[in-house]
């Protein structure tokens, strides 16, 4: 495991350096960058995306992908709106949303593991299907009368943190710790790496690949449903296009974290750093006079740097180790 960690550790260190640079440059360019108010805004705008990157990381490490995350968020938001409109008690709504999230993930998982369909294609289908269900549930309507006790999570910070930490960011931290422990310190987590490296070998080693992948998709569904609830309360709005288009951002952050798209490599620490880098950079740019029309270019450039930087580090290391006689390029 340390073998696998070594090249990664270099990547996480690089990411940490990037985060620090973003922080330093951001603060120097804009006096508002490191204020508690701005950190609060950061948490508000990125909390749900950050939360969704965690199960996505596990899924990609295990060799699959889930592009339906934003649509599950939307579906959960629509459900929240519709049920609230029908005067369901909030706790009952939460319970049903959790069940629906698990079911949405289960559908993905079963299609991928039982029917053997490629997850990229399947989740493009469920991306449309779940967004469609959200549209059927809400139609053209918007629900915006949620009780302030809940919508306050979009207005107030977690008490005792100096007005800087949002509830969604706090949840992200808690979940990151849980996912981190599961991924890096349990046999379950190790089996994910094995599956990602080779599903065949993992199966022969007795790992229940199908069962585990289905569980991962279900966890993703549940987490995204929770994100949907957070999103709805933060904006005090349930509307069918909540979260539209977020899946690519989630995937981009996970890739930026050094998680290999082929599976078998990655770390939660990287994901946390990537979230900070991605969100911090966008936020810092907004605080300057940066032309927002070019913000996509920044995301793309970050991605490229992430993949080339990592390749450079890994490959030059490999060359050094395996082909010592070859003249250095």
């Amino acid at each position: 495991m340390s073998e696998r960690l070594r090249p990664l550790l270099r990547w996480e260190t690089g990411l940490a350096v990037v985060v620090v640079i973003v922080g330093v440059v951001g603060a120097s360019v804009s006096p508002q960058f490191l204020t508690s108010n701005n950190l609060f805004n950061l948490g508000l705008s990125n909390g749900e995306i950050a939360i969704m990157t965690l199960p996505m990381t596990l899924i990609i490490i295990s060799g699959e992908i889930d592009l339906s995350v934003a649509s599950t968020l939307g579906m959960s938001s629509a459900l929240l709106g519709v049920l609230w409109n029908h005067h369901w008690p909030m706790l009952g709504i939460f319970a049903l949303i959790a069940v629906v999230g698990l079911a949405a993930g289960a559908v993905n998982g079963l299609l991928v593991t039982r029917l053997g369909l490629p997850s990229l294609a399947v989740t493009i289908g469920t991306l449309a299907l779940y967004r469609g269900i959200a549209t059927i549930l809400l139609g053209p309507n918007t629900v915006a009368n949620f009780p302030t006790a809940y919508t306050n999570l979009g207005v107030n910070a977690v008490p005792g943190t100096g007005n800087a930490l949002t509830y969604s960011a706090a949840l992200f931290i808690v979940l990151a710790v849980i996912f981190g422990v599961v991924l890096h310190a349990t046999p379950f987590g190790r089996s994910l790496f094995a599956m990602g490296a080779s599903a065949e070998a993992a199966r022969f080693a007795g790992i229940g690949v199908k069962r585990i992948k289905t569980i991962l998709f279900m966890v993703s569904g549940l987490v995204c449903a929770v994100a949907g609830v957070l999103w709805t309360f933060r904006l005090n709005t349930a509307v069918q296009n909540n979260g539209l288009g977020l899946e690519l951002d989630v995937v981009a952050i996970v890739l930026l974290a050094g998680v290999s798209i082929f599976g078998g490599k990655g770390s939660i620490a990287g994901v946390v750093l990537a979230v900070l880098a991605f969100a911090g950079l966008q936020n810092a740019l907004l605080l300057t006079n940066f032309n927002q029309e070019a913000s996509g270019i920044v995301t793309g450039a970050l991605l490229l740097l992430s993949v080339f930087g990592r390749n450079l580090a890994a490959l030059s290391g490999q060359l050094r180790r395996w082909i010592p006689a070859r003249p250095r390029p």
Partner: protein
Amino acid sequence: MSTTLVSRSERPPAAPGTGARRLTERAFRIRESGIIVVLVVFVAVTASVQHRFLNTTNIQFILVNTTVFALLALGETMVVISRNYDLSVGSVLGLSAYLSANLFGQHRGIPIVVVFLAGLGIGLACGLLNGIMVSAGRVPSLVVTLATLYIFRGVDILIVGGKEVVASSLPGAFLNIPKATVIGIPDLAIAIAVVIGIGAYYLRSFRSGRELYAIGSNPDAARLAGIPVGRRVFVAFTVSGAIAGVAGVLWAAQYGTIDSTAGTGYELQVVSAVVVGGVAIFGGSGSAVGAALGALLLNTISSALYVLGISPFWDQAIWGFLLIVAITVDRFIAVRLAIALRLRGGRHE
């Protein structure tokens, strides 16, 4: 009626060769027939509910709407067969659509052919960038093209800003390209069918085309067998970009008004079309004709939903559901096919 239209223009020529090659040909044809079957059944069911679905105008609509996606599917197929992905096609299309259509306004009287070449060039340049990064950089194409999806779109927005190219600046002959028909079949559909045929022929009959399949099946083995993997992949991306560039010009001709949002979100639709068309998402198998048929099927489904007047709020859900069904059916066919091939393969070897 739609069946004969499709098969007449898109059946590939019989390829000569050994028994194994003939087998592969047959395999492809069975796969494509599978999609055609699904298409026919779907059209039949829709037409029985709404007979106007099959009238000339509607078929023309569907064929013309499909052309851009069929083209993009051709380029994407080449890339996916080699076990890569090109997610930047939507952004390349948008960039090319604006920049090339803008030429009409900047240079009065510019020949339409030159504008097509300009679009091709823009796409080629983008594809070149993708190709260099993927092949020389040896980095996962999903990541690279996701990045260039953002970057090309960002460049597009920067260049275009709040401007747009409007129909009044485009010559009538240009805007007429998607509308011209011969004996009821849109010229554009015929032209694209020919292009797809050429692409399919290249993939099956040229060594470099078939090497893409080898690369997709097992890149390391391909490299060891002496196939210039880097060069082939580079060419695949360059061609995919060039095709997206041309598709952009056609997009401009179809819609007449082009701003910085042209082509947004197309990448997922193209990947869906390709997968529905039987191209394996992990590379190594699939056909260009199948992918084009996949694009046709998906567009037909869209059109059917709108013609049937199903409540618009149900569109997306039904579309997603049908996509999953299409993938499942194709997977089913593929599995049966693999079993059949394995049995036959034993006898033929």
